[in-house]
């Protein structure tokens, strides 16, 4: 059985959805962050893809495109010991408080 990301030829009769959305700030950041991290040799593209492919099946299908990237970046940074889940969570709480 193919992995969830291995998408060629899957059953799909729907017309291609041609709607396009302008990227939000966080989405530009999500696409730019790997560029900087790659330049510094902190992550590489193959790790990023592996991170996306490792997303559990149901989550992979439910998540929009940029969310999959964001999830992969986050899990790689944690895997490499650069950040911890706890400090990300604390920082998120602080940021949300700041915004509200």
């Amino acid at each position, binding site marked *: 059985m193919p992995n969830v990301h291995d998408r*060629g030829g899957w059953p799909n009769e729907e017309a291609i959805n041609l709607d396009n959305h302008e990227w939000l700030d966080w989405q530009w950041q999500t696409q730019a962050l790997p560029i900087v991290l790659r330049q510094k040799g902190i992550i590489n593209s*193959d790790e990023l893809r592996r991170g996306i492919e490792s997303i559990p099946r149901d989550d992979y299908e439910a998540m929009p495109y940029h969310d999959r990237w964001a999830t992969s970046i986050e899990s790689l940074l944690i895997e490499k010991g650069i950040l911890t889940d706890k400090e990300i969570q604390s920082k998120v709480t602080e940021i949300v408080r700041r915004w509200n």
Partner: protein
Amino acid sequence: MKDSYKPDYRINDRVRIKNVYPQGHHRTPWFIKGKIGHIAAIYGKFLNPEQRAYGLDGCPKQALYRIQFKQKNVWVNYLGETQDTLCVDLYERWIERV
């Protein structure tokens, strides 16, 4: 594009893609596994992405080829024309001579 090495294959060599499903990261799509095509381009050697995906250095480099398939040989009920083709870039470990 080519490194100075002697590739194992030549343009138009008939090859089969290995029909294996390893656990780790690999970029060989399911639909051409086990299928027969031919060498359409020889790209030289690249760091092995299947190793790089786990933070390893990717050495030794792996030869990369473009393999071309007749669509009718890939899909049982291909709806297009008999001359339509599909090209996929694959690393040497996935290819075997027919």
